[in-house]
């Protein structure tokens, strides 16, 4: 199987601590792959490694067979690998629509100077970005809050805005950082439906998540991390039956609920 995005032997050390240890897996085109694991398993480190926000100590990330792990984040984004953030990370003092418009950066045809002098190309770009932003907001059901300033939004909308920003970059692979964290059951179900719709737009989705239930529902395949190592990989049903996974999660759950 050829993967669109592939992690090979990813390792990250912080001083003496090994946060991620020799993790390999791949994501096929239009697949939804989830990385799960108990707290402190190294999920978010792995997430940052894949999105080029951190440099690996060893190993590499390949996108369409090309190494992207030592590139600056904006170049990885230009190639088509774009991440989202957890909810508080938006352009807080801009309107929702402006948030999405600015995120069309990668689709610019005019140069910076062109924008300064408002050339024809620049004007065309701006008009196109506006139309596209409206389309994206409509797609995600956010058109009613397009004029709101982002810092005034409630939590649920903030997450939608984060995804809208990601979509505006026109990515091939969208990396979602804990898209269901802190949601109640209804909200989670809505979000799950939305992620499916993203795939229908032709996107490949890699998400890092804590919420087992949602992940089981949504994923084509799941990678499980514990103590920085991959302990399992497979379809949701395979993972559910995997002893190592159950052990890892039970151990943690026990501690977490104080048993």
């Amino acid at each position, binding site marked *: 199987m050829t993967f669109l995005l592939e992690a090979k032997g990813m390792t990250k050390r912080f001083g003496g601590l090994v946060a991620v240890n020799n993790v390999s897996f791949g994501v096929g085109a239009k697949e939804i792959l989830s990385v799960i694991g108990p707290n402190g398993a190294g999920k978010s480190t792995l997430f940052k490694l894949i*999105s080029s926000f951190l440099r690996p100590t060893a190993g590499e990330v390949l996108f369409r067979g090309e190494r992207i792990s030592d590139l600056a984040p*904006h170049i990885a984004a230009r190639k088509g690998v*774009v*991440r989202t953030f957890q909810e508080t990370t938006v*352009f807080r003092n801009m309107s929702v629509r402006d948030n999405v418009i*600015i995120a069309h950066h990668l689709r610019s045809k005019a140069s910076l100077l062109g924008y300064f002098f408002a050339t024809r190309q620049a004007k065309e770009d701006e008009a196109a970005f506006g139309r596209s932003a409206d389309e994206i907001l409509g797609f995600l059901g956010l058109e009613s809050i397009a004029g709101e300033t982002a810092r005034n939004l409630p939590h649920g909308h903030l997450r939608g805005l984060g995804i809208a920003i990601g979509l505006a*970059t026109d990515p091939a692979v969208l990396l979602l950082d804990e898209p269901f964290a802190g949601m109640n059951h209804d909200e989670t179900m809505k979000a799950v439906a939305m992620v499916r719709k993203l795939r229908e737009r032709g996107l490949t989705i890699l998400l890092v998540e804590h919420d087992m239930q949602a992940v089981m529902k949504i994923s084509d395949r799941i990678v499980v991390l514990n103590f920085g190592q991959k302990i399992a990989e497979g379809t949701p049903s395979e993972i559910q039956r995997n002893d190592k996974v159950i052990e890892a999660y039970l151990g943690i759950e026990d501690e977490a609920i104080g048993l």
Partner: protein
Amino acid sequence: MSISRRIIAVTAFLILVFAVIPILIAVSGRKDFYYTLSSVALLSMASAGVWLTFHIGRINIGQGAYALMGGYVSAILVMSYGVSFWWTLPLAGLFCALASILIGLPILRLRGVYFAMVTLVLTEVARLLALALPVTQGAKGITSIPVEVFGLTLVPDFTMMENPRIAFYYLSVALMTACFALMHRLVNSRIGHICMSLQQNEELASSIGINIAQIRVIAYAISSFLGGLAGAVFVAATQSVYPSSFTVADSINFMLNCFLGGLGYVFGPMLGTLVLYFGWNLLFETGRFQLLIYSALMIALMLVLPNGLLSLGTLRKER
């Protein structure tokens, strides 16, 4: 706003600075205001640069370094190489922009107070360099820069004018007008929005494909260009430059001008400079209580309008 109203506003501004103020000066006989207002115009340009770095989310307390650098570049070119004063202006600006790219590449990675402090130190480094380097003539400074450089062909001949102060006033406000026109365009174009995205969250900006390092350096270079240009004109106006011509106090003042006018408004630095610099001069009459009154007024202003003088309009609207 509509285009016609914009034209009216711009015209009104031009008439004010190029006609009304000179007439007011002539009527009131306060010829010393030419120098004061030229200073305000030039310092507000340097402050506009600082404002632009604020716009990308950096507190810049290093503009004094570039103003000093620009001043020295202009003075050295005029004195040692016989370059016309007019040519030294863009050259000084470009020199500063280039220097700021070299300096900015490493230090623009710093954020918040760390960037602020490094730029503050940069101002001091510039002063110490001016004292130590042979080309700047050390402690003595460069003095008696000839006024003949204004004997030129293309532009109005300064020496022909009755009072060079008036000529400098026109030059300064013309440059200031151009500077703020460019700034206004820059900030309201997509570039301004990109800068603002950096200000609000650099990681997010970088995740959507913005080359944050490049934008930062560009903004910083423009900022330094303005600082260098202002410094160069200032040196010509006073015909001399010393290591103490622009110091840490100036760098801090440039920053304060931006705060006072309002960080959210592109014309903030202009108003801020006018109020801070001119305000100090107006309080000249109060003698030994000058600093006390000045600082008390500043504190009061800050309490009433913490987002700058120009936030007065939005404040009223909110009510």
